[in-house]
């Protein structure tokens, strides 16, 4: 039996990840002051990780079932608004000085947001998405319609105006590291984002369900031929993705310290850019893409504010010119 000369070992493609580090490193001389750089970098990582939490579900749903949900923003919005209600109801906890009570309140708000967003996700999949599997044009249209309806329903329930979402006392303010002010909330966002990332990676790589998802992203038909009812799996992934979006909505709302019904549509563009950069269907790509977007947005926001939104598109174009299918394209596509 002939053996090829040398089969390359399972190589981990570290280049895109190195890109993140390189970007951060490049930022330092451009920004000048190390303390400002540190603040901006943490802000960028925090924003990036929040976007990752939101977008991770979307990219898996697309990778697995070829469904692009233009209405993903609905889950973000509902998550954010549910948080306002929960935190409002837990006023005692959110106004207390105790860090534990504050964190507890936020934790409860997150759970509630995830539960509600997940439930809406289940309904969304059933009513809006399921009838249009495989029909891309209709998917785009109908999920947009779903978002319109969702946004209006939020206005029905919570009213059309902006609602403030203030941080509880323990999370306000910043840590001082030398000259740099690092906002406490951003640190929390980074930690949570990394926890979600780790949990996702563990599920995908160490459980059979995760194995099914990764296989299904490459070849749905073969997974079915092996005897697995992948439709059921899809519903599960969709619901999980919606729940994550809801969690992201809470994080985003706290980041902005206010929520508006259009919050979903606002973040939509950003998450699409992230998943295109990352490669549709790749969780790790989504992670790296989100970090890049977060850093770029914050660095350009400081260095050249007028160009801020363009910077993300320019980043996307640059990455696509280098790797046309995204940073970590999934093999089958």
């Amino acid at each position, binding site marked *: 039996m*002939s053996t090829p000369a040398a089969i390359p070992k*399972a190589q981990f493609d570290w280049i895109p990840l190195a890109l993140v580090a390189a970007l951060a490193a490049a930022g330092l001389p451009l920004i000048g002051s190390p303390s400002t750089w540190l603040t901006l970098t943490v802000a960028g990582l925090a924003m990036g990780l929040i976007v990752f939490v939101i977008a991770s579900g979307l990219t898996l749903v697309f990778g697995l079932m070829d469904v692009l949900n233009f209405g993903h923003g609905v889950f973000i919005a509902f998550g954010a608004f549910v948080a306002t209600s929960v935190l409002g109801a837990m006023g005692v906890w959110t106004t207390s000085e105790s860090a534990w009570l504050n964190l507890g309140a936020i934790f409860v708000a997150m759970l509630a947001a995830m539960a509600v967003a997940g439930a809406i996700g289940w309904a969304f999949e059933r009513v809006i998405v399921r009838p249009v599997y495989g029909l891309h044009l209709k998917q785009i249209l109908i999920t947009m319609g779903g978002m319109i309806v969702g946004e209006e329903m939020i206005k029905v329930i919570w009213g059309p105006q902006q609602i403030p979402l203030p941080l509880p006392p323990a999370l306000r303010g910043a840590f001082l590291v030398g000259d740099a002010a690092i906002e406490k909330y951003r640190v929390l966002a980074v930690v949570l984002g990394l926890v979600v990332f780790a949990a996702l990676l563990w599920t995908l790589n160490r459980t059979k369900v995760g194995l099914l998802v*990764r296989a299904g992203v490459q070849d749905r038909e073969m997974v079915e*031929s092996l*005897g697995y009812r992948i439709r059921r799996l899809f519903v599960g992934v969709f619901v999980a993705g919606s729940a994550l979006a809801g969690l992201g909505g809470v994080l985003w709302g706290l980041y902005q310290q206010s929520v508006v019904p259009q919050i979903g549509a606002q973040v939509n563009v950003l998450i699409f850019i992230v998943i295109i950069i990352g490669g549709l269907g790749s969780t790790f790509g989504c992670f790296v893409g989100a970090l890049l977007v977060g850093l770029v947005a914050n660095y350009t926001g400081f260095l050249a504010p007028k160009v801020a939104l363009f910077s993300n598109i320019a980043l996307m174009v640059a990455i696509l010119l280098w790797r046309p299918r995204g940073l970590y394209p999934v093999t089958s596509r």
Partner: protein
Amino acid sequence: MNLLELKGVHTHIGAYHILHGVDLDVPEGQVTMLLGRNGAGKTTTLRTIMGLWTASQGTVSFEGQSLVGLPTPEIAQRGIAYVPESMGIFGDLTVRENMTLAARSAARAEAIDATRLEWIFGLFPALKKFWLYPAGKLSGGQKQMLAVARAIVEPRRLLLIDEPSKGLAPSIIQNLISAFRELKAQKSSILLVEQNFMMAKALGDRVAVMDDGRVVHAGPMAELAEDEALQQRLLGLSLGAHQ
């Protein structure tokens, strides 16, 4: 006793009428070869059995029960394993992960039946060597071995295998023949689509020849192997010829 029976099966793909009334018997415990030139409908037949395409007419019964209209996972769960022409290897997953997936009852790789795994490694040593490598990096022959290995990692009632030898070096083909011979010895039921007639002759107990979406000849392999005129008429060349 026939494990699988197709009667008058028609399959349409969109506007195209591919199968025009296929009658096929696959007896239990034997290797049935499905032969025919390109475009005869062999792959379509396998996919129809597997439920990937739905028969528009006719019956497909497995162990006496109808498969028509059932979703593919359900058909697979009745004990039918399918190795498609494209092999269906998950390139980003390791060999280990591919096998774990194929072993439905195993929650993790460690839970795969060790004895069975050893047996498979005996048939296909390369899989043991490249156990932790991404399957996409294997050579064509190795991928084919993995595809077959996945189909047999757990006992199955029926194996549907589509052109396993396509594009492979003769030495690898020998490897596959040995593996199939062992399966045969274990009384596995196999429906094997092949264009490699040396392989067909070596393995087949029964043979069915397709043309234009129909089965035009069915019978014992030995019979066809001896009748060169028949071979010429059905297949355009003889089974003994160099392949």
